[in-house]
């Protein structure tokens, strides 16, 4: 080949073999072109393959990006993207909870929070800017809502910084409205505080009635600890005071109305029976299926004791604890009603003490009060449980004696009373004897009304006093005139 030939001057070469040399050079150059073309084709194939690979990666990246955008679009959490300074660049539709989407871009994110949280946002941006190690940050912010003046919402915020070569470029913000959650937590906290601290017993059962939880007041009232009660059916508290019918009615009301209220007797762990005011409520789901029953009860025993005490205070004589004149009137009315229905009879006895004034005069009121207490006790001891002994005046008593009508019986009872009172009283170490004058009126013979019966008994009592005391007299219609003519009280004549 010409290229292998030794070098020769350009002029000479051309002159000696002009055609052959030029053809050979062209041939060589063309082969060289073909070789390069082969190289280019190879490299082209490789580039095409690379292009296809890139294209595939690109397509899947585009796909992923579009999927991500669709996801963010459908996301119920608020998504915001800000620049490194916190200025909003884009947002998703859920952001409407803060402000209309068109108003958000360009807004500084700190301006969305309530005044008290703006400093937190500033510090967060500072941390992200200074390149904190954390890949994401979580915080809770109160956001002002600019949409329709809704109240501020409590948001749980995740911040994801986007860094390129360690430089903060943008920040993704995922903001979840946790207002309802916080409110529910608050409510649940309040509920459990109430559950734990109320003085009313509370038990919560499942829909089968098995106890799920009881509160401390439950344990205090019933004596059963939470461990003992949970898992049991509340039946274990039953005292037996209510019959099957009662419970059937209770359950019927609870099932139809969703609640029941009433008074019920239960038994404590120590066996004591107590009365409670119980409110049962069923908790139901949206479809009306019972999820659980809630029983709230208060122990009425103390209340009833207090009521009894109040009744006693209002209706008894403070000194002797005997029924007072008011209660006597009540009892007398009841007794008249009962006797009328049953066609029965009873006696009203008026008892007036003889020589009592002397005790007060000689020993003073304290001694007199002691003596009255003793006399009250003796009177009560002389009578049957069914009889009513009341103190109706300073030294005046009245006794209702059901079923006693014969003069013989009256004489026996009056004698017993007088005998008891004639026993000497020990007053400051000195003996003193009082006596009693007793008047008796009978229902219905001497009156059918409380006032006339009492009045007639007192007329008879004065008759006994006139007779010298320590005796009894039964009312006679004729006495009335004498009584009216001499209305002076027994004490004055004693």
């Amino acid at each position, binding site marked *: 080949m010409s*290229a292998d030939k030794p070098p020769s001057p350009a002029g000479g*070469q*051309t*002159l000696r073999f002009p055609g052959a040399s030029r053809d050979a*050079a*062209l041939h*060589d*150059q063309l082969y*060289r072109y073909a070789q*390069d073309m082969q190289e280019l084709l190879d490299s082209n194939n490789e580039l095409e393959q690379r292009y296809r690979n890139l294209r595939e990666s690109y397509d899947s990246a585009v796909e992923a990006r579009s999927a991500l955008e669709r996801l963010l679009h459908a996301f119920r959490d608020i998504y915001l993207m800000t620049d490194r300074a916190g200025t909003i660049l884009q947002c998703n539709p859920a952001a409407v909870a803060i402000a209309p989407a068109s108003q958000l871009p360009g807004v500084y994110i700190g301006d969305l929070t309530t005044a008290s949280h703006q400093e937190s946002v500033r510090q967060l941006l500072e941390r992200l800017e200074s390149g904190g190690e954390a890949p994401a940050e979580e915080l809770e912010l109160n956001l002002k809502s600019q949409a329709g003046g809704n109240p501020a919402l409590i948001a749980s915020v995740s911040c994801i910084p986007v860094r390129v070569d360690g430089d903060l470029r943008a920040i993704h913000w995922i903001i979840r409205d946790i207002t309802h959650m916080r409110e529910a937590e608050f409510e649940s906290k309040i509920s459990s505080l109430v559950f734990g601290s109320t003085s009313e017993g509370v038990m919560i059962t499942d829909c089968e009635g098995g106890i799920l939880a009881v509160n401390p007041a439950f344990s205090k009232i019933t004596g059963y600890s939470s461990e003992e009660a949970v898992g049991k059916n509340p039946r274990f508290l039953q005292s037996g005071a209510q019959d099957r019918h009662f419970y059937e009615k209770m359950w019927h009301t609870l099932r139809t109305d969703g609640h029941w209220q009433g008074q019920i007797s239960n038994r404590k762990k120590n066996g004591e029976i107590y009365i409670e005011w119980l409110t049962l409520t069923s908790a139901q789901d949206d479809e009306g299926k019972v999820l659980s029953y809630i029983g709230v009860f208060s122990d009425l025993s103390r209340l009833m004791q207090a009521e009894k005490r109040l009744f006693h205070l209002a209706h008894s004589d403070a000194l002797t604890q005997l029924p007072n004149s008011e209660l006597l009137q009540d009892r007398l009315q009841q007794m008249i009603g009962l006797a009328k229905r049953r066609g029965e009879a009873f006696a009203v006895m008026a008892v007036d003490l003889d020589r009592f004034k002397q005790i007060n005069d000689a020993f003073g009121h304290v001694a007199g009060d002691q003596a009255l207490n003793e006399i009250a006790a003796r009177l009560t001891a002389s009578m049957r449980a069914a009889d009513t002994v009341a103190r109706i005046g300073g030294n005046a008593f009245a006794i209702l004696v059901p079923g006693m009508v014969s003069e013989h019986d009256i004489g026996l009872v009056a004698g017993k009373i007088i005998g008891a009172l004639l026993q000497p009283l020990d007053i400051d170490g000195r003996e003193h004897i009082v006596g009693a004058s007793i008047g008796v009126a009978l229902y219905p013979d001497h009156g059918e009304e409380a006032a006339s019966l009492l009045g007639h008994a007192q007329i008879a009592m004065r008759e006994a006093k006139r007779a010298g005391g320590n005796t009894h007299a039964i009312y006679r219609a004729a006495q009335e005139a004498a009584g009216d003519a001499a209305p002076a009280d027994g004490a004055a004549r004693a």
Partner: protein
Amino acid sequence: MKKILIVDDHSDIRKLIRITIGNSYEVLEAEDGMTALQIIRHHQPALAVLDIMMPGEMDGLQVLDAIRADPALKDMQVIMVTARGQAKDYEAGMSRGANAYLIKPFSPIHLVNSIKELLK
């Protein structure tokens, strides 16, 4: 488009080079040294592909000398082209101011890359 002058007495070789780079540059041609120098002075191309062995009064090296002797052409790039194995030509060309050197048959890829590199 930058101008490139191809200097070769072989018209087919010039044609090959024109096809190779014609899309990217404005191509001028000369078949001998004297013509080349005239075109260079007139058009001031950015680069010349200069064959050393040429008939006539000036060979490639002489054209190179003339280019380097002219201050108006100090920025002009020159690629020398010669037949295979002419080591002394290479040395002569490079020492007299050529910017690159190709051996025939040259690789068109190499040529294109060299031009690109020199005109960067």
